[in-house]
């Protein structure tokens, strides 16, 4: 299962475009795969004969799983040797000739049932031994077999184990983890009325998982400041006035993106990621822009935003937003971001805080520009202010780092001429 997007952890095989026995050349369309972000056609990077398909259409497998083998057809039956899906091994059964053996032992009596049931802790990734009905009952009740101790022979989880676990945790049983439409239909009316279960799309599942993961693992802290946007708004008005028919006029958000990109180049930590106990600083500054799509949230990327002019950023972000709405956005356009800008100003939201898009260091939440009275030189004068909130991952950015970065973004937007440098 190839990694077709940055955040992809598993993929679903939608359709095989080659059959077993077909010749495959490098670049041939081999298989269509649904990732957490889009449906992708995967082109073969090797040539040979499609010897074996291991993942049927509809199968969902983690990245790195063997989904097919391309090679020399004469090797068709050779073992794959490198971590295909685990093959289930038949368990040793009691010998069919048990009576004979018992009896031949002389006793002819009852053989004590060996008690290997003593619960040994399972290692992670180890196949869970459970009887078929135990699996079915667990699925019906939304119980995770991994958490159960098997009392059957060899530690096998049997129905009684699942039923005991179900009694111990009835609350869990109320919310089946697996989609169970039949069970939903039988659910009685509650004080909250009847329940309609809405299944999440794959993309929504990804968003939920990553957001929950971010909040649970990245220690967020928040910095808020107000930016005087009077010059920026003025500058934008002048650009608009000077634009000829068909020219793209940068939005305030494009200016925010550009300001962030410049600041990110100057503060490599803010452009970093936290991965496996260390910080990775990235050479490219790629700013993601959170875009609300229908029933989903995606973050297309403006690559090398620090090196691009405002007009180019504006043109790219329009195109990306368009493709998100059309559903034609591709995983590469949704990957590789090193920082994210989320703007809810168009809804009249004055300020908010956002959830970091992992493994990035920070996300900037941008509110609307408000006409407010400000005090300048002891006098109350009309001002145009925009509240911004920077959420930082404290493992990468400390308070002062985040503050310096945010101050730099503010200074750039307050003197927008710097955005043109």
């Amino acid at each position: 299962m190839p990694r077709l997007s940055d955040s992809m952890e598993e993929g679903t095989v939608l359709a095989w475009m080659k059959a077993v026995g077909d010749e495959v050349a490098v670049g041939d369309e081999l298989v269509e795969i649904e990732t957490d972000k889009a449906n992708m056609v995967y082109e073969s990077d090797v040539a040979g004969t499609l010897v074996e398909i291991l993942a049927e259409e509809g199968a969902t497998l983690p990245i790195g799983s063997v989904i097919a083998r391309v090679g020399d057809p004469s090797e068709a039956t050779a073992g794959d040797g490198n971590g295909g899906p685990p093959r289930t091994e038949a368990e040793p059964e009691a010998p069919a000739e048990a009576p004979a053996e018992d009896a031949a032992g002389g006793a002819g009596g009852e053989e004590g049932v060996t008690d290997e049931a003593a619960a040994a802790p399972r290692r992670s990734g180890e196949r869970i031994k459970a009887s078929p009905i135990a699996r079915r009952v667990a699925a019906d009740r939304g119980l995770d077999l991994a958490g159960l101790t098997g009392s059957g022979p060899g530690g096998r989880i049997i129905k009684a184990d699942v039923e005991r676990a179900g009694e111990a945790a009835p609350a869990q049983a109320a919310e089946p983890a697996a989609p169970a439409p039949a069970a939903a239909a039988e659910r009685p009316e509650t004080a909250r009325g009847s329940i309609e279960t809405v299944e999440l799309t794959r993309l929504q599942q990804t968003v939920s998982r990553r957001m929950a993961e971010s909040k649970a693992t990245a220690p967020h802290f928040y910095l808020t400041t107000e930016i005087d946007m009077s010059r920026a708004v003025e500058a934008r008005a002048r650009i608009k006035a000077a634009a000829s028919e068909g020219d793209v006029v940068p939005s305030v958000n494009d200016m925010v993106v550009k300001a962030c990109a410049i600041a990110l180049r100057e503060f490599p930590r803010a452009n970093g990621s936290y991965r496996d106990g260390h910080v990775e600083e990235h050479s490219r500054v790629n700013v993601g822009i959170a875009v609300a799509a229908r029933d989903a949230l995606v973050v297309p990327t403006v690559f090398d935003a620090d090196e691009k002019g405002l007009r180019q950023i504006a043109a790219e972000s329009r195109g990306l937003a368009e493709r998100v709405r059309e559903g034609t956005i591709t995983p590469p356009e949704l990957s590789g971001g090193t920082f994210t800008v989320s703007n809810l100003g168009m809804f009249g939201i004055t300020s908010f805080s956002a959830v970091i898009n992992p493994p990035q260091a920070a996300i900037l939440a941008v509110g609307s520009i408000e006409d407010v009275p400000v005090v300048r030189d002891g006098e109350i004068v009309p001002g145009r202010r925009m509240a911004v909130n920077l959420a930082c991952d404290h493992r990468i950015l400390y308070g002062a780092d985040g503050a310096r970065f945010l101050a730099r973004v503010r200074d750039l937007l307050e003197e927008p001429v710097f955005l043109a440098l």
Partner: protein
Amino acid sequence: MATMRMREALNEALREEMERDESVFLMGEDIAVFEGAFKVTQGLMDQFGERRVRDTPISENTIVGTGVGAAMAGLRPVVELMTVNFSLLAFDQIINHAAAIPYMFNGQVRVPLVIRMPGGGGHQLGPTHSHSFEAMFLQIPGILVACPSTAADGKGLLKTAIRDDNPVIFVEHETLYGIRGEVPEDDHVVEFGSAAVRREGSDVTIVGILKMAHEAERAAETLAAEHGVEAEVIDPRTLRPLDLDTILDSVRKTNRAVIVEEGWPHGGVGANLAALIQEQAFDHLDAPIQRVTGADVPMPYSKRLEQSAIPHPEHIVSAVLETTSGALP
């Protein structure tokens, strides 16, 4: 309701069917004058005469072949082979002819033949007289296989076998001829393909055939008394047709199955039934299906060795406890 032995019940079935239908006649070694090695045909020659109760030479393939021809010609022969082991001499007639002819002639010719044969161990008759070949006959399409374990079923199944238009292998167990049981009077018929639930239970399904149906019941009593396990005991009564529904319903209730037979383990009745159960009730199983079978050896002659080669209730108890391990307090 009269209490009688299995041999008397079988005798009554033959008598009643011969009285009812003139086309029914008997053939076999020592069945007429000597009244059969196990006395199943006692008194029948006197009642029906030598024409309808015929002694034959020691020539199994010919006896069965004559039966096939007579059946094709419209009679309803009941052939006795002295033991199941001797049926091997008649495999050509049984498989190549009796079973195949209705198919070969597209049903235009039927073979309403019953081949009775006693089998099983326990009487120290050695490897040439004591085997259990139910599985072999079960494998042959075109042949029905009946395995009565009680006197009532012996009578009811034999009457059905005689009236059926298909060739029927009717397996009798040598140690069950003397077993007593209540047999309904008049025309008592037991349908093929209808299993009997001998004992109801919720913890494990034990399927036993012939003598093993009784051993299963004994094991169930021990399990209830000593282990708190309530076993459901099912006797399929006919292996083809098989009442799989009754067995599957029981397994869906108990989630466990143990199959007991006296025959050999490989490719046995239990092997076949275990495959059917896991194919059709996989999601209901809580433990691997256990088989209790005869030993994987030709039947020994020595009394101790012979007893060692045959399943006993304690083996069934062990197998059941294997399936319930960890599941019950």
